[in-house]
């Protein structure tokens, strides 16, 4: 796995240095002197330096590459199977949908649904407790934000 990772980092570093930095760093008219000092103070300096470092580290990781099994044996990272993929992917998907619908539907209406969906998805089955918590927590947060901090959370359909 580390060999793949090292290779990917080297590719990313090259792409970053030669494509992203020239396109995404808009140079100013003002420059600090010339020579080494001027180059180091340029807004290009750190992005380029980091791209170089990333490439170097990629080579290092590639050369030290271990197999996935050895990596896990050494205590780095943790296993990622189908169950983990479903649980993490599902949670992330619920959060993504929540983010997309928060503005049109509103915090007070959407958050109880999102909280309850997440709890049910994670295996919590005590319905009454779930309903109480799913309503009480978002309402408390909403009121705390509105009256305590004067922050209006998205009102959506209730606005």
């Amino acid at each position: 796995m580390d060999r793949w990772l090292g290779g990917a980092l080297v590719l990313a570093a090259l792409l970053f240095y030669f494509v992203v930095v020239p396109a995404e760093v808009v140079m100013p008219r003002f420059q600090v002197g010339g020579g080494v000092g001027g180059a180091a103070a340029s807004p290009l300096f750190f992005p380029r330096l980091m791209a170089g470092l990333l490439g170097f580290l990629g080579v290092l990781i590639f050369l030290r590459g271990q197999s996935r099994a050895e990596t896990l044996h050494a205590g780095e990272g943790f296993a990622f199977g189908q169950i983990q993929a479903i649980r993490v992917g599902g949670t992330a998907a619920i959060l993504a949908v929540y983010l997309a619908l928060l503005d049109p539907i509103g915090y007070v209406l959407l958050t109880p649904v999102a909280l309850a969906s997440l709890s049910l998805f994670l295996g919590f089955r005590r319905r009454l407790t779930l309903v109480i918590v799913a309503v009480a927590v978002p309402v408390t947060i909403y009121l705390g934000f509105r009256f305590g901090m004067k922050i209006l959370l998205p009102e959506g359909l209730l606005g």
Partner: protein
Amino acid sequence: MLDQLAQAAATVFGWQALAMILVGTILGMVVGALPGLTATMAMAIFSPLTFFMPPLVGIPFLLGIYKGGTYGGSISAILIGTPGTASNAATVMDGFPMAQQGRAGKAMQTSIYASTIGDLISNLVLVLAAWPIAVIALKFGPAELFALILFSMTIIASLAGRSLPKCLVSATFGVLLAMIGIDTISGASRLTFGVSELQGGISYIPFVIGLFGLGEIFVQVSKRTGHLTVVDLKGDPAANRVTFREILGKYKLTVLRSSLIGSGLGALPGIGAETSCWVAYAMARRASRHPERFGKGEIEGVIAPEVGNNAVCGASMVPLLAFGIPGDVVTAVMLGAFIAQGLRPGPLLFKENIVEIYGIFITLFLATLAMFVVAKLSVRLWVRVLQVPAGLLYPVVTMLCLAGAYAINNSLFDVGIAIAFGVVGYTMRMAGFEVAPMVLAFILAPMLEQSLAQSLMMSHGNPLIFVTRPIALLFLVLTAVSIALYIRSGLRARLLQAAEVPVAERHGASERQ
């Protein structure tokens, strides 16, 4: 001076500050006690709340979380054998066996006393050390600051788990993320990819909430944890009795040694309570007349790590307050809260915000008192708190994370940032990358870049400015020595590993035969 002290005391002894210290301490303890939730995470989630409070109400709240969280991890370490935070990992070694032997009450009380003593000593270290260091720091110009930050960045290597290159990759991405937005020196727009919300850079708090809050929740979610099995607190009252005097009398050497270890390591950038608890534990075991009792329910095995980890709390704020440089992730989060309050940690804080400095010093002691009182009163409640089902707890914390991310700029984009970095944080942990180097690099990189540019402007582009100024040169030499030491220890570890493999192979071969 007395006027300012009185002014600070009047604020922090006001009901608002006292209430927030108490709330922060309770919150910190709950979060610290629940495995998977950390004090750093709680500080990240709740720091947006402090932006709407006066500085001497908001910062005490965060200090309460920090101290409560550092102690709170010992509760689950003792009652369920799983440390609530990494800072309490060593407490499991003897705390959990004590609980299994029917001495859970004694272990809990010991942990309270030990944490309180460690915390008090650490507060004293901060109060006594920060001011003189800040006076020296006032003489620093951009060149000295650049060299100091560069030296501080080498500490990131000390956060490396088993792979230094992966730690550095994480830090490199942290620097790159910090480069996004308008460069404050030249005004150049960098790496925004045409997204207007990125012109101001990535918001720090949503970034930290994502990495530490949501990222950790994704990790916990993937583990499928239900109810935790908690050891009962009932037991023989005589076997569960312990007093402050006993700890300070019978175990004074362990207390003193562990305090020195915690405060000394805490004041060094990069080394936090996660390390100090183990060093204090190991030293206590080495100095003990009965090292064989360690790991089997020895009371000193609870005292040492608990004094050692709480002794970090105050000391870790020395580099933050004196230089404005966070030494670890907790103080990095705190730095964000300071800045949002309009306070710029560093030597000037001791000149321009003396009331706030006095207030913070007084608060540290009040937070220690709050921690002690709440811990003493709540011993029996923890069995119930630890039984909150994961399926209910994590969704609630997730919603708090998202609301906290929104609160900074009233922006859904920030909520998206938090979710995105939650996924990034999870993926990094899964692939064996440390998250902390990314956060520290994200904080330090702009300071480094700014001081570099300012130094070169002062010298008209001449880089020799860094070697002609003695303090800057000293820190550059220290940086070089620090890097050389990391390389040497890395090479030594690889040589040892290489030597072990043939032995293991030989052993395996002989077993097969």
